[in-house]
């Protein structure tokens, strides 16, 4: 789970898949980086909109969950290679089977609830392309 300040700080980027890109070398970053590891001080970082479309490079089904996620287990987490070049960890929505190499598209979903009657946190999950899964 995230602290409320962390959630709010990254909400815009996480909700909208806004990463960054180094103009100098052309590499794109999601999660966004404020510093290009290749160009360092010569790098010029700007915002970059990712489509969120990509391909699963590996996945797991979490049965034993950490605090805050217990009620959602089992759930699938994959590493997704985005078409624009970066890799990101993300949940695959229930009801669609993950496969290595499988194409995915982003969807907006509930991530978890904070406490019993707490705030519901939303975010991006991924859905296997061409399937209809849980809303």
């Amino acid at each position, binding site marked *: *789970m*995230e602290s409320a300040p*962390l959630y709010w700080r*990254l909400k815009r980027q996480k909700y909208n898949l806004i990463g960054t890109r180094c103009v100098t070398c052309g590499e794109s970053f999601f*999660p966004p980086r404020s510093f290009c590891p290749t160009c360092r001080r010569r790098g010029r970082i700007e915002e970059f909109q990712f489509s969120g479309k990509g391909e699963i*490079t*590996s*996945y*797991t*089904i*979490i*049965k*034993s*969950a*950490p*605090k*805050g*996620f*217990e009620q*959602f287990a089992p*759930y699938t*987490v*994959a*590493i997704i290679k985005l078409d624009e070049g970066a*890799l*990101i*960890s*993300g*949940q695959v929505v229930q009801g669609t089977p993950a496969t*290595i190499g499988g194409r995915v598209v982003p969807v907006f979903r509930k*991530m*978890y609830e904070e406490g019993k009657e707490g705030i519901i946190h939303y*975010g991006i999950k991924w859905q296997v392309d061409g399937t209809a899964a849980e809303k």
Partner: protein
Amino acid sequence: MTDVAIVGVGCTKMDEHWTKSLRDLSTEAGALAVKDAGLDGKDIQALYVGNMSSGRFIGQEHLAALAADQAGLIPIPATRCEAACASGSLAFRKACLAIKSGEYDIIMAAGGEKMTDIKGPEAIAALMGAADQEWESAIGLTFTGLYALMARAYMNTYGLTRDELSQVPIKNHFHGLKNPLAQFRFEVTAEQVARSAMIADPLRLLDCSPITDGAAAVILVSDRVADRFKNPIWVKGSGQASGTLALHDRPSLTEIPATQIAAKRAYDQAGVGPQDIEVAEVHDCFSIEEILAYEDLGFAPKGKGKDLLLNKDTWIGGRLPVNTDGGLKLGHPVGATGIKQLIEIVRQLRGDAYNQVKDPRIGLTHNIGGTGATALVHILGKER
């Protein structure tokens, strides 16, 4: 250049120590190491402590000062080092550098973790402090989950089967049978591994290291004083490297570059290569990691790590026994682990291991933090 030797070792049982606090465990391990070295506490000039997350596990930071206090070592300098599950080796390496700086001749390097004071899901969350909180923990990943991602990618790329992967826990549980300090002492079969509870598909309970309380300590000395001690074991090489914190930021899921770089530094410093290693402790937090380590350390070519298991090379009696004390499957109090590994190699080289390899002269330890954002490799030798 100053050389460094290990002249004393001490380790608690790896266990769920309900009646003991971290201060009890660290004092116990430290006292055993001081005694093993034939020293008195007043001879220790500095203390280095590896610990990952005492802030979250027991609400206590400032752990090195606490350890010095409880062990009656005040006012010597006390330093806590942290790099997740590699904290123990990190503390050891910083102690080596401190001796090489010329400021100290006798240092204690210890590691400890008290993990059972909080509930399971809280411990799983605390351990995720080793990974990327903003982009991995936040979506519900667990440590088993991260290694499961690596395991599936590896199985997919190199054709590793479930039963082949199970050779890691089968070997290590067999090795641990003889280790009185191990948390579990029983053999497991391929069938038992394959039927054990799924934790994060494809990794099962018997692929995972347990939640453990424990502490371990070693005494390091400079070559200026080493001849006062019987049977010093020499630190021939020490390498440390970093990788991205998040697994998804790495180009490949089937290797850990930080291990490769740390190993190269350690080999170069020691003037040896993988072929010279006669006994090793590698970081088998999850079964898959032992196979990755074989390859990243140069023990086997890429994709061929499993052969060392299938050919029994890394079993006791083979050409390169690995995790002769049972490895991390037999207890993984994260901050203590790196020191515990060094202790096993020291004992093997001294000839007083519980599960003794025949007369080894050069051994290696490999300890990583998180999914490999930190890696440390040490090479120890019987001769200076």
